[in-house]
């Protein structure tokens, strides 16, 4: 039996490399990776995978690569996620839109041109959630998007729309809206929470500390991508659809933080509850202070709202149609991710 050709964009990244690994484990795929970076140390590369360096902002580069690889399916993971307070701003969001939206448009075009049969797009729960100050309880895919307030959320929503509207019977597309991902080498979750320890930010509870939140482990997201490719290949029930992909274990945000800090043997020495409104003003003050001093903190209004709003979804659609089941449980995911981070810290300390 001949192998199905799959092309993964951003295949050397945090999620991309995990997807490549999951594809190879199926033993039915031949994988080409397109990335602007070569495989970096730590993410690991695979000898059976062909790595091609290309910039998704260049249609001509892509045309060449895609014509050569002739993939049957494309998994598009490339996206930029502004970190820290930048995430909640609109200023300086042009590169975000360029890469997330124009880049996606280029990939869709190149895929269609080379005769690919389908495309799986890595979207994000932020297409729904980045409506700041709003609660989302057990939301599903029928909830309307497009009420967004961040550049990231907007750009992802636009890209998702672009991908899903390109769906035809010859070129099937679907979007996977992943929750905040944790795993070895994640930058937005484990590392960000770790930094709170040294900054002395751990004792402060903003809001009532009972808001539920969704997370997902990186290999579970990777599994979902493989399942999506297989679905588009076989039944195609997922074509034109978006799916929430989380660990299906909503947890109180504060508890998740405490669990991460606990892995680093840190327990907040005391606890202070700050009402949400006050927190918002504090965030506002800190934003000004960091503007004046030129230093950046974890604290800002967006982060405050991100930490106090209830945001969790139902993954029953992914379970039903993709047969998705999160294999690595959240408690295990926290342990693995923090353990890895700790080892990295140790290695850094030695150097």
């Amino acid at each position, binding site marked *: 039996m001949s192998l199905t050709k799959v092309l993964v964009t951003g295949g050397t990244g945090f999620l991309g490399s995990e997807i490549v690994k999951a594809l190879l484990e199926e033993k039915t795929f031949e994988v080409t990776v397109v990335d602007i970076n070569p495989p970096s140390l730590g993410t690991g590369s695979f000898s059976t995978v062909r790595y091609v360096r290309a910039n998704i902002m260049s249609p001509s580069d892509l045309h060449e690569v895609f014509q050569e690889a002739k993939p049957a399916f494309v998994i598009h993971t490339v996206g930029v996620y502004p970190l820290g307070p930048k995430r909640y701003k609109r200023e300086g969001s042009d590169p975000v839109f360029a890469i997330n939206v124009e880049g996606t448009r280029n990939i869709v075009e190149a895929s269609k041109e080379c005769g690919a049969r389908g495309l799986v797009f890595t979207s994000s729960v932020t297409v729904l959630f980045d409506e700041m100050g709003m609660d989302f309880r057990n939301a599903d895919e029928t909830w*309307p998007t497009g009420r967004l307030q961040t550049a990231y959320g907007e750009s992802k929503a*636009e890209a998702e729309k672009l991908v899903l509207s390109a769906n035809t019977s010859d070129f099937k597309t679907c979007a996977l809206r992943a929750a905040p991902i944790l795993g070895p080498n994640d930058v937005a979750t484990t590392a960000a929470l770790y930094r709170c320890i040294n900054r002395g930010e751990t004792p402060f509870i903003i809001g009532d500390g009972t808001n539920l939140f969704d997370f997902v482990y990186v290999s579970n997201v990777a599994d979902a991508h493989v399942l999506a490719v297989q679905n588009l290949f076989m039944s195609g029930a997922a074509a034109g659809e978006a799916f929430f992909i989380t660990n299906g274990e909503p947890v109180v945000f504060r508890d*998740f933080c405490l669990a991460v800090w606990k892995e680093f043997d840190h327990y907040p020495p005391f606890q202070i509850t700050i009402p949400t409104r006050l927190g918002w003003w504090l965030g506002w003050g800190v934003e000004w202070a960091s503007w004046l001093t030129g230093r950046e903190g974890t604290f800002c209004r967006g982060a405050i709202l991100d930490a106090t709003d209830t945001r*969790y979804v139902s993954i029953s659609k992914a379970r039903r149609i993709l047969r998705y089941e999160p294999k690595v449980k959240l408690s295990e995911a926290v342990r693995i991710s923090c353990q890895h981070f700790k080892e990295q810290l140790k290695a850094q300390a030695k150097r």
Partner: protein
Amino acid sequence: MVSASSVGYYLFHPQELRSIIQWKVWHNPVHERDETKESETLQRCFHFLDLTSRSFSAVIKELHPDLLVPVALFYLVLRGLDTIEDDMTIPLEKKEPILRNFQDLLEKDGWTFTENGPNEKDRQLLVEFNVVIEEFKKIKPEYKVIIKDITKRMGNGMADYANNAEHNINGVNTIKDYELYCHYVAGLVGEGCTRLFVEAGLANPVLLKRPELMESMGQFLQQVNIIRDIKEDIDDKRRFWPKEIWSKHVAKFEDLFEPENKEKALACSSEMILTCLNRADDCLYYLAGLKEQSVFNFCAIPQSMAIATLDVCFQNHDIFKKNVKITKGQACQLMLESSQNLKLVCDVFQRFTRSIHKKNNPHDPNFLKISIACGKIEQFIESIFPSQKKPEGAAGVPVMTAEEAAKKKAEEQEAKWDMIYMIMAVVITLVVITSSMLFVAWLAGARFDLAFGQAKQQLGELFGSGSDAKNTIAPSSDHSEL
């Protein structure tokens, strides 16, 4: 009858006292049994039901007439079986065949059992077991099949455990063994009851296709009992907490009771509670499949009591020292809330889940898992009773890109300046006209100093104090009317 301490307690918890009064005075049973139509043997059966079960007899006696007798007999049969299993004075050779063949004894006219030890509290039931057999004959054959099947499987399960020397010495070993034990003594009861409900047409037949739900109903109750009764059981030399769990925290089971191991004992109890809590959403799911009010009450009341008990046991070191219970007032309140509808039962579950969550301790090895278990219950309740409406209308609103946003911002900016220019133009025009008029008047010889003085005086008269001003104004107004 009423102790001084309970008078003191209810003095400070009037809400609970109110619940007791409400339940005792206002609760109307959904169905009431009609004692006049009952045979003597059936009345005797109900007498035993009152004697042997404290919590269940009340809810059983309110059951739908079709189910009343079958469920009562089902309970008595299992109680009889349990009385034989429990009695350590009966030698194994004698015990085993009775346990394994109990389902056949149910059809043996006049069978009784008198060899229980004198301390066995329910021995009288077996001494007069012929009344149960007499009534068992009269029920619908479909019910008989179900009761006999469950009795057979439970009896065999109990016999296996009685035979298992290791179990008798060391107690339960793995979590799997623990759940299997709970399956025999409680999960099977869940199955039996469900089959009886469906047979009577009072529950959704789909419940039989989801066996894990009825299993969880039994498991949840049984596991809560095992957690709560830890002290009582160890005093009776019984151990149901599985070694797989307690050995993670202490070296010897008895160490759990040492005061210096308080933290470890609490961590161990948390893990037991976590195992149990993971079943709570199944129980709510099951309750959603019940159609008839009396059946719903019969199932929901014990479940509500169980989650409340779980809450009092959580992070409570007293369970290792004494029997921890919910108060009578709380129990009555729970009965009130659990005999109405699923929404109220979900509220009860949510309330106690949040209370458990609040007490969750970051130092506990299962801190995150307990938090996740609580989240799971919250999500399940949200899925059947959404607290939030899906926002509407925005789906059609196109998403804005950066350029569009920038364009929109520029437009807004432009509009703002347009507005400013307009206001400035109006103000300037007015100033120019006014000043040119004043200039013309001045050229014509207007005395602005006099005009100003007069204006000041008139204003003073208008707003000035005293009645003089009023009087001067009044005639002038009269005058103007002329």
